[in-house]
């Protein structure tokens, strides 16, 4: 029950893939900052994992991305939702 945050673009570096090596089935992955590009339909993390996927709304907006451009199955959360996720999950692990 760990919430992983990832703030790097999957198009440029390995951070998200390294994160996904360590995730368990009950974990969550929150994409934020430049990590939100990993939510695009055109982004392909090496494996589809059984984690729950989230993406930070404010960071999508800041970059001109819409929810419609995101892969199916990703939940869009705002900062309040980010806090709620940190309540739900037992700890937070940041990948940068």
């Amino acid at each position: 029950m760990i919430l992983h945050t990832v703030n790097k673009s999957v198009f440029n570096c390995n951070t998200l893939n390294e994160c996904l090596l360590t995730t368990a089935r009950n974990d969550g992955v929150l994409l934020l900052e430049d990590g939100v590009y990993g939510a695009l339909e055109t982004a392909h993390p090496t494996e589809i994992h059984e984690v729950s996927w989230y993406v930070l709304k404010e960071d999508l907006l800041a970059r001109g991305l819409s929810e419609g451009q995101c892969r199916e199955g990703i939940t869009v959360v705002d900062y309040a939702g980010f806090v709620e996720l940190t309540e739900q999950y037992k700890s937070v692990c940041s990948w940068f």
Partner: protein
Amino acid sequence: MKYSIAVYGGPYSHQATHTAFHFAQAVLDKGHEIQRVFFYHDGIYNGSALVAPPQDEANLPQQWQQLAEKNGVELVVCIAAAVRRGLLDENEAKRYSKPGSNLEQGYQLSGLGQLVDAGLECDRLVSFGP
């Protein structure tokens, strides 16, 4: 719940500081407590008293200071990371015979143990890297 926040990115270079600040506000808005914000690596530059951003940009050190004062949050800067990067309080300036100090009011220099302690004492420790 009791939170602490770790910031590893420098202001005006990486978004990490902004993200951490918005997260901190949202944590407080939810009625949680923030015990401490710990600044490490380039995050220590957040503690500078001398930043002078353009008028239409946020003064991040002062934003932290105001948030901390209003909500009883400790702003702790890793002393080892700070001193080597040129962020000094008056004591350290004296110790190293430097002509001045530049740590913003409301921040304190302390050891990395304060980061370990935050992880132990708090229900959640959330880190923001560059």
